Protein backbone atom coordinates (compact mmCIF):
# COMPACT_ATOMS: atom_id res chain seq x y z
CA UNK A 1 0.00 0.00 0.00
CA UNK A 2 1.23 3.52 -0.71
CA UNK A 3 1.54 6.16 1.96
CA UNK A 4 -1.56 7.82 0.55
CA UNK A 5 -3.58 4.59 0.62
CA UNK A 6 -2.52 3.92 4.19
CA UNK A 7 -3.56 7.40 5.25
CA UNK A 8 -6.94 7.07 3.55
CA UNK A 9 -7.49 3.75 5.28
CA UNK A 10 -6.90 5.37 8.70
CA UNK A 11 -9.20 8.28 7.86
CA UNK A 12 -11.87 5.74 6.91
CA UNK A 13 -11.38 3.84 10.18
CA UNK A 14 -11.71 6.99 12.24
CA UNK A 15 -14.86 8.11 10.45
CA UNK A 16 -16.92 5.54 12.39
CA UNK A 17 -16.12 7.13 15.77
CA UNK A 18 -19.02 9.25 16.86
CA UNK A 19 -17.42 10.86 19.88
CA UNK A 20 -14.02 11.79 21.24
CA UNK A 21 -14.05 9.02 23.82
CA UNK A 22 -14.24 6.24 21.24
CA UNK A 23 -11.50 7.93 19.27
CA UNK A 24 -9.15 8.33 22.22
CA UNK A 25 -9.90 4.83 23.53
CA UNK A 26 -8.79 3.52 20.13
CA UNK A 27 -5.63 5.66 20.17
CA UNK A 28 -4.84 4.49 23.71
CA UNK A 29 -5.27 0.85 22.64
CA UNK A 30 -2.92 1.45 19.70
CA UNK A 31 -0.41 2.96 22.11
CA UNK A 32 -0.61 -0.07 24.37
CA UNK A 33 -0.16 -2.44 21.42
CA UNK A 34 2.80 -0.64 19.79
CA UNK A 35 5.64 -3.19 19.64
CA UNK A 36 8.46 -2.34 22.02
CA UNK A 37 11.41 -0.54 20.56
CA UNK A 38 14.67 -2.41 21.05
CA UNK A 39 16.11 -1.02 24.31
CA UNK A 40 19.50 -0.67 22.58
CA UNK A 41 17.91 1.82 20.19
CA UNK A 42 16.75 4.11 22.98
CA UNK A 43 19.89 6.18 22.55
CA UNK A 44 20.43 9.88 23.14
CA UNK A 45 20.57 10.33 19.37
CA UNK A 46 17.12 8.84 19.03
CA UNK A 47 15.42 10.81 21.79
CA UNK A 48 13.10 13.70 21.05
CA UNK A 49 12.44 15.73 24.16
CA UNK A 50 9.11 17.48 24.23
CA UNK A 51 8.03 19.85 26.95
CA UNK A 52 5.45 17.33 28.12
CA UNK A 53 6.47 13.86 27.02
CA UNK A 54 9.41 12.30 25.29
CA UNK A 55 9.68 10.14 22.23
CA UNK A 56 12.30 7.68 21.03
CA UNK A 57 12.48 6.97 17.33
CA UNK A 58 14.71 4.60 15.42
CA UNK A 59 14.79 3.94 11.66
CA UNK A 60 16.57 1.03 10.00
CA UNK A 61 17.04 0.46 6.31
CA UNK A 62 16.13 -3.02 5.12
CA UNK A 63 15.82 -3.93 1.45
CA UNK A 64 15.63 -0.30 0.46
CA UNK A 65 12.82 0.48 2.89
CA UNK A 66 12.93 2.13 6.31
CA UNK A 67 11.52 0.26 9.27
CA UNK A 68 10.63 2.58 12.14
CA UNK A 69 10.32 1.65 15.79
CA UNK A 70 9.44 4.07 18.55
CA UNK A 71 8.32 4.58 22.10
CA UNK A 72 6.98 7.33 24.34
CA UNK A 73 6.33 7.74 28.04
CA UNK A 74 2.83 9.09 27.29
CA UNK A 75 0.30 6.59 25.96
CA UNK A 76 -1.67 8.99 23.71
CA UNK A 77 1.56 10.17 22.12
CA UNK A 78 2.46 6.52 21.67
CA UNK A 79 -0.88 5.81 20.01
CA UNK A 80 -0.36 8.60 17.52
CA UNK A 81 3.16 7.32 16.90
CA UNK A 82 1.65 3.91 16.14
CA UNK A 83 -0.49 5.57 13.47
CA UNK A 84 2.50 7.45 12.03
CA UNK A 85 4.52 4.25 11.91
CA UNK A 86 1.67 2.43 10.21
CA UNK A 87 1.73 5.09 7.47
CA UNK A 88 5.44 5.71 7.06
CA UNK A 89 7.25 2.51 8.04
CA UNK A 90 8.29 -0.01 5.41
CA UNK A 91 8.40 2.62 2.67
CA UNK A 92 11.32 3.85 0.60
CA UNK A 93 13.16 7.04 1.60
CA UNK A 94 11.83 8.77 -1.53
CA UNK A 95 8.23 7.92 -0.75
CA UNK A 96 8.66 9.18 2.81
CA UNK A 97 10.19 12.43 1.60
CA UNK A 98 7.68 13.08 -1.16
CA UNK A 99 4.43 12.50 0.71
CA UNK A 100 2.48 14.95 2.83
CA UNK A 101 1.07 13.57 6.07
CA UNK A 102 -2.48 14.84 6.02
CA UNK A 103 -4.29 12.15 7.99
CA UNK A 104 -3.54 13.57 11.47
CA UNK A 105 -5.46 16.71 10.53
CA UNK A 106 -8.31 14.77 8.94
CA UNK A 107 -8.92 12.46 11.89
CA UNK A 108 -9.22 15.44 14.22
CA UNK A 109 -5.88 15.18 15.98
CA UNK A 110 -4.46 18.33 14.51
CA UNK A 111 -3.80 19.86 17.92
CA UNK A 112 -1.31 17.09 18.63
CA UNK A 113 0.83 18.24 15.75
CA UNK A 114 0.69 21.90 16.66
CA UNK A 115 3.85 23.23 18.27
CA UNK A 116 1.87 24.23 21.36
CA UNK A 117 1.38 20.61 22.39
CA UNK A 118 5.12 20.31 22.68
CA UNK A 119 4.86 16.56 22.88
CA UNK A 120 7.63 15.78 20.47
CA UNK A 121 5.34 14.69 17.64
CA UNK A 122 6.22 17.59 15.37
CA UNK A 123 9.89 16.85 15.88
CA UNK A 124 9.17 13.18 15.36
CA UNK A 125 7.75 13.72 11.87
CA UNK A 126 10.79 15.87 11.13
CA UNK A 127 13.07 13.13 12.43
CA UNK A 128 11.35 10.50 10.27
CA UNK A 129 12.11 12.66 7.24
CA UNK A 130 15.68 13.11 8.44
CA UNK A 131 16.13 9.34 8.61
CA UNK A 132 14.77 9.17 5.04
CA UNK A 133 17.15 11.91 3.89
CA UNK A 134 20.10 10.17 5.52
CA UNK A 135 19.33 6.78 4.02
CA UNK A 136 18.61 8.33 0.65
CA UNK A 137 22.03 9.95 0.61
CA UNK A 138 23.63 6.68 1.68
CA UNK A 139 21.92 4.52 -0.95
CA UNK A 140 22.52 6.97 -3.76
CA UNK A 141 26.24 7.26 -3.08
Amino acid at each position, binding site marked *: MTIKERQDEIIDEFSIFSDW*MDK*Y*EYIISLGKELPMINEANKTDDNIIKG*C*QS*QVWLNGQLENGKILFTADS*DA*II*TKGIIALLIRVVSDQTPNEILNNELYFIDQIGLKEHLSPTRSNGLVSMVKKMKLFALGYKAKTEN
Partner: protein
Amino acid sequence: MSFNIEALRNEFPILSRKVNGQPLVYFDNGATAQKPQVMIDALNNYYSFENANIHRGVHSLSQEATTAFEAARTKAQVYFNAAKSEEIIFTKGTTDGINLLAGSFGRTFINEGDEVIISTMEHHSNIVPWQMICDERKAKLRIAPINEKGELLLDELKAMVNEKTQLISIVHISNALGTINPVKEIIDFAHANDVLVMIDGAQSVPHMKIDVQVWDCDFFVFSAHKMFGPTGIGILYGKEHLLNKMPPYQGGGDMIKTVSFERTTYNELPHKFEAGTPNIAAGVALNATFDFLNKLDWKVIHTHETELLDYATAELKKIDGLRIIGEAANKASVISFLVDGTHPFDVGVILDQMGIAVRTGHHCTQPLMDWYKIPGTIRASFAIYNTKKEVDKMIVALNRAIKMLR
Protein backbone atom coordinates in the same frame (compact mmCIF):
# COMPACT_ATOMS: atom_id res chain seq x y z
CA MET B 1 -19.80 40.33 53.35
CA SER B 2 -21.31 37.49 51.36
CA PHE B 3 -19.42 36.53 48.28
CA ASN B 4 -21.52 36.72 45.14
CA ILE B 5 -19.55 34.34 42.96
CA GLU B 6 -22.05 34.40 40.10
CA ALA B 7 -21.83 38.19 39.82
CA LEU B 8 -18.04 37.95 39.88
CA ARG B 9 -18.01 35.24 37.21
CA ASN B 10 -20.25 37.38 35.02
CA GLU B 11 -17.50 39.98 34.87
CA PHE B 12 -15.34 37.46 33.00
CA PRO B 13 -16.85 36.86 29.54
CA ILE B 14 -14.62 33.87 28.74
CA LEU B 15 -16.05 31.87 31.64
CA SER B 16 -19.31 31.41 29.77
CA ARG B 17 -17.79 29.83 26.68
CA LYS B 18 -17.61 26.16 25.79
CA VAL B 19 -14.51 24.15 24.99
CA ASN B 20 -14.88 20.91 23.04
CA GLY B 21 -18.63 21.21 23.48
CA GLN B 22 -18.41 21.43 27.27
CA PRO B 23 -18.66 24.46 29.55
CA LEU B 24 -15.12 25.66 30.20
CA VAL B 25 -13.64 24.79 33.59
CA TYR B 26 -10.54 26.96 33.76
CA PHE B 27 -8.00 25.63 36.24
CA ASP B 28 -4.86 26.97 34.57
CA ASN B 29 -4.82 30.26 36.42
CA GLY B 30 -1.21 29.75 37.43
CA ALA B 31 -0.27 30.14 33.77
CA THR B 32 -2.47 33.15 33.21
CA ALA B 33 -5.67 34.47 34.77
CA GLN B 34 -8.81 35.35 32.81
CA LYS B 35 -9.76 38.95 32.13
CA PRO B 36 -12.64 41.05 33.48
CA GLN B 37 -14.75 43.06 31.04
CA VAL B 38 -13.50 46.41 32.42
CA MET B 39 -9.95 45.54 31.45
CA ILE B 40 -10.99 44.34 27.98
CA ASP B 41 -13.04 47.52 27.47
CA ALA B 42 -10.11 49.72 28.47
CA LEU B 43 -7.85 47.96 25.98
CA ASN B 44 -10.43 48.22 23.23
CA ASN B 45 -11.21 51.84 24.04
CA TYR B 46 -7.54 52.80 24.03
CA TYR B 47 -6.95 51.49 20.52
CA SER B 48 -10.33 52.78 19.30
CA PHE B 49 -10.24 56.32 20.66
CA GLU B 50 -7.10 57.15 22.66
CA ASN B 51 -4.11 55.77 20.74
CA ALA B 52 -1.07 58.05 20.73
CA ASN B 53 2.54 57.79 21.82
CA ILE B 54 3.28 59.00 25.33
CA HIS B 55 5.79 61.26 27.10
CA ARG B 56 6.57 63.28 23.97
CA GLY B 57 3.63 64.81 22.14
CA VAL B 58 2.27 68.23 22.94
CA HIS B 59 -1.01 67.35 21.29
CA SER B 60 -4.03 66.46 23.39
CA LEU B 61 -4.17 62.82 22.36
CA SER B 62 -0.59 62.19 23.48
CA GLN B 63 -1.25 63.95 26.76
CA GLU B 64 -4.39 61.91 27.38
CA ALA B 65 -2.52 58.68 26.66
CA THR B 66 0.35 59.76 28.94
CA THR B 67 -2.10 60.53 31.74
CA ALA B 68 -3.87 57.17 31.38
CA PHE B 69 -0.57 55.27 31.26
CA GLU B 70 0.96 57.11 34.20
CA ALA B 71 -2.25 56.62 36.20
CA ALA B 72 -1.48 52.91 36.18
CA ARG B 73 1.86 53.66 37.83
CA THR B 74 0.26 55.73 40.55
CA LYS B 75 -2.40 53.10 41.15
CA ALA B 76 0.28 50.42 41.36
CA GLN B 77 2.17 52.52 43.88
CA VAL B 78 -0.91 52.89 46.07
CA TYR B 79 -2.01 49.26 45.60
CA PHE B 80 1.34 47.80 46.63
CA ASN B 81 2.05 50.63 49.04
CA ALA B 82 5.35 51.67 47.50
CA ALA B 83 6.81 54.83 49.03
CA LYS B 84 7.01 56.62 45.67
CA SER B 85 5.66 56.11 42.17
CA GLU B 86 9.24 56.37 40.86
CA GLU B 87 9.84 52.98 42.46
CA ILE B 88 7.39 51.37 40.04
CA ILE B 89 9.20 50.32 36.85
CA PHE B 90 7.14 48.98 33.98
CA THR B 91 8.53 45.81 32.41
CA LYS B 92 7.23 43.19 30.01
CA GLY B 93 6.54 40.86 32.92
CA THR B 94 8.18 38.85 35.68
CA THR B 95 10.87 37.36 33.45
CA ASP B 96 11.75 40.76 32.04
CA GLY B 97 11.86 42.26 35.53
CA ILE B 98 14.28 39.59 36.79
CA ASN B 99 16.44 40.00 33.70
CA LEU B 100 16.54 43.75 34.25
CA LEU B 101 17.57 43.22 37.82
CA ALA B 102 20.19 40.58 36.99
CA GLY B 103 21.57 42.74 34.18
CA SER B 104 21.61 46.07 35.97
CA PHE B 105 21.92 45.21 39.66
CA GLY B 106 24.10 42.22 38.80
CA ARG B 107 26.66 44.20 36.82
CA THR B 108 26.89 46.76 39.60
CA PHE B 109 26.64 44.84 42.84
CA ILE B 110 27.74 41.28 42.03
CA ASN B 111 31.47 40.83 41.75
CA GLU B 112 33.95 37.99 41.54
CA GLY B 113 33.52 35.60 44.45
CA ASP B 114 30.15 37.01 45.49
CA GLU B 115 27.13 34.81 46.05
CA VAL B 116 23.46 34.89 45.10
CA ILE B 117 20.96 32.58 46.78
CA ILE B 118 17.85 31.14 45.14
CA SER B 119 15.85 28.03 46.09
CA THR B 120 15.17 24.58 44.66
CA MET B 121 11.57 25.54 43.87
CA GLU B 122 12.34 28.46 41.55
CA HIS B 123 10.79 28.86 38.12
CA HIS B 124 13.33 28.93 35.26
CA SER B 125 12.96 32.70 35.07
CA ASN B 126 14.39 33.04 38.58
CA ILE B 127 17.21 30.60 37.82
CA VAL B 128 18.60 31.29 34.36
CA PRO B 129 19.12 35.09 34.59
CA TRP B 130 21.10 34.54 37.80
CA GLN B 131 23.09 31.70 36.27
CA MET B 132 23.97 33.97 33.37
CA ILE B 133 25.04 36.93 35.48
CA CYS B 134 26.91 34.75 38.01
CA ASP B 135 28.80 33.17 35.12
CA GLU B 136 29.65 36.58 33.71
CA ARG B 137 30.70 38.07 37.06
CA LYS B 138 32.44 34.87 38.29
CA ALA B 139 30.05 34.72 41.21
CA LYS B 140 28.45 31.70 42.80
CA LEU B 141 24.79 30.76 42.63
CA ARG B 142 23.66 28.85 45.70
CA ILE B 143 20.49 26.84 46.02
CA ALA B 144 18.52 26.72 49.26
CA PRO B 145 17.04 23.23 49.72
CA ILE B 146 13.46 22.09 50.39
CA ASN B 147 11.90 19.11 52.15
CA GLU B 148 9.68 16.38 50.68
CA LYS B 149 6.55 18.40 51.43
CA GLY B 150 7.91 21.20 49.27
CA GLU B 151 8.75 23.55 52.12
CA LEU B 152 11.84 25.71 52.11
CA LEU B 153 14.44 24.65 54.68
CA LEU B 154 14.76 28.05 56.28
CA ASP B 155 17.59 27.17 58.64
CA GLU B 156 19.68 25.90 55.75
CA LEU B 157 18.97 29.03 53.76
CA LYS B 158 20.02 31.15 56.72
CA ALA B 159 23.20 29.10 57.09
CA MET B 160 24.10 29.89 53.48
CA VAL B 161 24.13 33.63 54.10
CA ASN B 162 27.64 34.97 54.59
CA GLU B 163 29.64 38.15 53.93
CA LYS B 164 29.83 37.27 50.21
CA THR B 165 26.06 37.05 49.78
CA GLN B 166 24.76 39.99 47.75
CA LEU B 167 21.19 38.94 47.10
CA ILE B 168 18.54 36.38 47.94
CA SER B 169 16.13 36.04 45.03
CA ILE B 170 13.21 33.88 46.02
CA VAL B 171 9.74 32.98 44.91
CA HIS B 172 6.88 33.97 47.22
CA ILE B 173 4.48 31.27 46.01
CA SER B 174 5.76 28.27 44.06
CA ASN B 175 3.95 27.90 40.74
CA ALA B 176 4.46 24.14 40.72
CA LEU B 177 3.80 23.30 44.38
CA GLY B 178 1.69 26.12 45.76
CA THR B 179 4.07 26.54 48.71
CA ILE B 180 3.92 29.99 50.31
CA ASN B 181 7.41 30.92 51.47
CA PRO B 182 7.95 32.88 54.71
CA VAL B 183 9.28 35.91 52.85
CA LYS B 184 8.98 38.33 55.75
CA GLU B 185 11.23 36.16 57.90
CA ILE B 186 13.71 35.77 55.02
CA ILE B 187 13.79 39.53 54.41
CA ASP B 188 14.30 40.36 58.10
CA PHE B 189 17.09 37.83 58.42
CA ALA B 190 18.75 38.99 55.20
CA HIS B 191 18.61 42.64 56.21
CA ALA B 192 20.12 41.84 59.61
CA ASN B 193 23.03 40.44 57.60
CA ASP B 194 23.23 43.29 55.07
CA VAL B 195 21.85 41.17 52.26
CA LEU B 196 19.25 42.41 49.75
CA VAL B 197 16.15 40.43 48.80
CA MET B 198 14.13 40.12 45.61
CA ILE B 199 10.70 38.52 45.80
CA ASP B 200 9.16 36.87 42.75
CA GLY B 201 5.46 37.58 43.21
CA ALA B 202 4.21 36.15 39.91
CA GLN B 203 1.95 33.66 41.68
CA SER B 204 1.03 35.80 44.69
CA VAL B 205 -0.68 38.77 43.04
CA PRO B 206 -3.88 36.93 41.99
CA HIS B 207 -4.40 35.57 45.49
CA MET B 208 -3.61 38.40 47.87
CA LYS B 209 -2.74 42.03 48.27
CA ILE B 210 0.90 42.71 48.95
CA ASP B 211 2.40 45.61 50.89
CA VAL B 212 6.04 46.06 49.89
CA GLN B 213 6.74 48.35 52.85
CA VAL B 214 5.39 45.86 55.38
CA TRP B 215 7.61 43.22 53.83
CA ASP B 216 10.43 45.74 53.45
CA CYS B 217 11.61 43.80 50.39
CA ASP B 218 14.22 45.49 48.23
CA PHE B 219 12.79 44.31 44.93
CA PHE B 220 9.49 42.76 43.93
CA VAL B 221 8.49 41.54 40.46
CA PHE B 222 5.28 40.28 38.90
CA SER B 223 3.31 40.09 35.65
CA ALA B 224 -0.02 41.86 35.18
CA HIS B 225 -1.57 39.00 33.21
CA LYS B 226 -1.52 36.72 36.23
CA MET B 227 -3.63 39.17 38.22
CA PHE B 228 -6.43 39.52 35.66
CA GLY B 229 -4.60 42.22 33.72
CA PRO B 230 -3.23 42.38 30.17
CA THR B 231 -0.27 40.41 28.84
CA GLY B 232 2.98 42.15 27.95
CA ILE B 233 3.28 44.34 31.03
CA GLY B 234 4.59 43.76 34.50
CA ILE B 235 6.19 45.69 37.30
CA LEU B 236 9.57 45.73 38.94
CA TYR B 237 9.33 47.47 42.29
CA GLY B 238 12.62 48.55 43.76
CA LYS B 239 13.62 50.82 46.63
CA GLU B 240 14.48 54.22 45.25
CA HIS B 241 18.00 54.43 46.68
CA LEU B 242 18.86 51.06 45.12
CA LEU B 243 17.34 51.84 41.73
CA ASN B 244 19.27 55.09 41.71
CA LYS B 245 22.53 53.21 42.14
CA MET B 246 21.72 50.86 39.26
CA PRO B 247 22.73 51.74 35.68
CA PRO B 248 20.19 51.66 32.83
CA TYR B 249 19.55 48.21 31.45
CA GLN B 250 18.63 49.09 27.88
CA GLY B 251 19.43 52.19 25.87
CA GLY B 252 17.07 54.08 23.63
CA GLY B 253 14.39 56.73 23.62
CA ASP B 254 12.59 57.83 26.81
CA MET B 255 15.43 56.69 29.08
CA ILE B 256 17.72 59.65 28.24
CA LYS B 257 18.01 63.25 29.32
CA THR B 258 20.43 64.45 26.64
CA VAL B 259 22.16 62.58 23.87
CA SER B 260 25.23 63.58 21.91
CA PHE B 261 27.73 61.38 20.12
CA GLU B 262 30.22 62.21 22.84
CA ARG B 263 28.11 61.68 25.89
CA THR B 264 24.59 60.74 26.94
CA THR B 265 22.99 61.59 30.24
CA TYR B 266 20.23 59.41 31.54
CA ASN B 267 16.71 60.21 32.55
CA GLU B 268 15.56 59.90 36.13
CA LEU B 269 13.52 57.16 37.74
CA PRO B 270 11.39 55.45 36.61
CA HIS B 271 12.07 56.36 32.97
CA LYS B 272 15.76 55.46 33.23
CA PHE B 273 14.70 51.80 33.03
CA GLU B 274 11.98 52.19 30.42
CA ALA B 275 13.70 52.58 27.06
CA GLY B 276 11.56 52.91 23.97
CA THR B 277 7.82 53.10 23.51
CA PRO B 278 6.30 51.00 26.27
CA ASN B 279 3.25 48.76 25.97
CA ILE B 280 0.91 51.72 26.30
CA ALA B 281 -2.30 49.80 25.65
CA ALA B 282 -1.39 47.30 28.35
CA GLY B 283 -0.59 50.14 30.74
CA VAL B 284 -3.99 51.71 30.16
CA ALA B 285 -5.66 48.30 30.59
CA LEU B 286 -3.64 47.72 33.75
CA ASN B 287 -4.99 50.99 35.07
CA ALA B 288 -8.52 49.57 34.66
CA THR B 289 -7.39 46.27 36.19
CA PHE B 290 -6.45 48.09 39.40
CA ASP B 291 -9.99 49.49 39.55
CA PHE B 292 -11.25 45.91 39.38
CA LEU B 293 -8.76 44.71 42.00
CA ASN B 294 -9.58 47.59 44.33
CA LYS B 295 -13.20 46.42 44.52
CA LEU B 296 -12.24 42.96 45.74
CA ASP B 297 -12.41 41.95 49.37
CA TRP B 298 -9.22 39.95 49.75
CA LYS B 299 -10.24 38.49 53.10
CA VAL B 300 -13.35 36.97 51.57
CA ILE B 301 -11.33 35.76 48.58
CA HIS B 302 -8.79 34.13 50.86
CA THR B 303 -11.57 32.23 52.63
CA HIS B 304 -13.10 31.20 49.30
CA GLU B 305 -9.81 30.01 47.81
CA THR B 306 -8.83 28.15 50.98
CA GLU B 307 -12.18 26.34 50.90
CA LEU B 308 -11.59 25.41 47.25
CA LEU B 309 -8.07 24.18 48.00
CA ASP B 310 -9.16 22.10 51.01
CA TYR B 311 -12.16 20.68 49.19
CA ALA B 312 -10.22 19.80 46.02
CA THR B 313 -7.35 18.31 48.05
CA ALA B 314 -9.74 16.07 50.01
CA GLU B 315 -11.61 14.97 46.87
CA LEU B 316 -8.41 14.27 44.93
CA LYS B 317 -7.02 12.20 47.80
CA LYS B 318 -10.02 9.84 47.47
CA ILE B 319 -8.72 8.77 44.05
CA ASP B 320 -6.79 5.53 44.19
CA GLY B 321 -3.10 5.98 43.39
CA LEU B 322 -3.21 9.76 43.34
CA ARG B 323 -0.22 11.51 44.85
CA ILE B 324 -0.14 15.21 45.65
CA ILE B 325 3.20 16.89 44.96
CA GLY B 326 3.66 19.78 47.34
CA GLU B 327 2.01 19.47 50.72
CA ALA B 328 3.39 22.49 52.50
CA ALA B 329 1.55 23.61 55.62
CA ASN B 330 1.14 27.07 54.10
CA LYS B 331 -0.20 26.72 50.56
CA ALA B 332 -1.94 28.83 47.95
CA SER B 333 -4.80 27.39 45.89
CA VAL B 334 -2.56 25.38 43.59
CA ILE B 335 -2.53 21.58 43.52
CA SER B 336 0.02 19.52 41.64
CA PHE B 337 -0.55 15.80 41.46
CA LEU B 338 0.32 12.55 39.75
CA VAL B 339 -1.80 9.47 39.22
CA ASP B 340 -0.17 6.01 39.28
CA GLY B 341 -0.25 4.29 35.92
CA THR B 342 -0.88 7.47 33.93
CA HIS B 343 1.27 10.16 32.33
CA PRO B 344 0.38 13.81 33.07
CA PHE B 345 0.24 14.62 29.35
CA ASP B 346 -2.36 11.90 28.69
CA VAL B 347 -4.51 13.03 31.62
CA GLY B 348 -4.32 16.64 30.38
CA VAL B 349 -5.42 15.65 26.87
CA ILE B 350 -8.44 13.69 28.14
CA LEU B 351 -9.48 16.43 30.60
CA ASP B 352 -9.29 18.94 27.75
CA GLN B 353 -11.76 16.85 25.78
CA MET B 354 -14.17 17.36 28.67
CA GLY B 355 -13.64 21.12 28.73
CA ILE B 356 -11.27 21.18 31.68
CA ALA B 357 -8.10 23.25 31.33
CA VAL B 358 -5.24 22.17 33.58
CA ARG B 359 -1.53 22.51 33.12
CA THR B 360 0.62 19.44 32.64
CA GLY B 361 4.37 19.10 32.38
CA HIS B 362 7.33 20.44 34.30
CA HIS B 363 5.89 23.96 34.80
CA CYS B 364 9.23 25.52 33.83
CA THR B 365 10.70 24.14 37.04
CA GLN B 366 12.87 21.32 35.69
CA PRO B 367 15.33 21.31 38.63
CA LEU B 368 12.39 20.96 41.02
CA MET B 369 10.91 18.08 39.01
CA ASP B 370 14.36 16.44 38.96
CA TRP B 371 14.52 16.87 42.74
CA TYR B 372 11.23 14.97 43.07
CA LYS B 373 12.43 12.50 40.37
CA ILE B 374 9.24 13.00 38.37
CA PRO B 375 8.79 14.06 34.73
CA GLY B 376 6.14 16.62 35.60
CA THR B 377 2.74 16.89 37.22
CA ILE B 378 -0.87 17.71 36.50
CA ARG B 379 -1.61 21.09 38.05
CA ALA B 380 -4.96 22.58 38.91
CA SER B 381 -4.58 26.21 39.97
CA PHE B 382 -7.64 28.06 41.18
CA ALA B 383 -8.61 31.72 41.06
CA ILE B 384 -11.19 33.95 42.66
CA TYR B 385 -13.92 32.90 40.20
CA ASN B 386 -13.61 29.10 40.48
CA THR B 387 -16.23 27.03 42.28
CA LYS B 388 -16.65 23.73 44.11
CA LYS B 389 -18.98 22.65 41.33
CA GLU B 390 -16.08 23.00 38.91
CA VAL B 391 -13.89 20.93 41.22
CA ASP B 392 -16.59 18.23 41.16
CA LYS B 393 -16.52 18.27 37.35
CA MET B 394 -12.76 17.87 37.37
CA ILE B 395 -12.99 14.89 39.73
CA VAL B 396 -15.58 13.16 37.52
CA ALA B 397 -13.48 13.86 34.43
CA LEU B 398 -10.33 12.68 36.17
CA ASN B 399 -11.91 9.37 37.17
CA ARG B 400 -13.03 8.88 33.59
CA ALA B 401 -9.55 9.69 32.26
CA ILE B 402 -7.92 7.26 34.68
CA LYS B 403 -10.33 4.52 33.65
CA MET B 404 -9.44 5.09 30.01
CA LEU B 405 -5.70 5.31 30.54
CA ARG B 406 -4.87 2.58 33.01
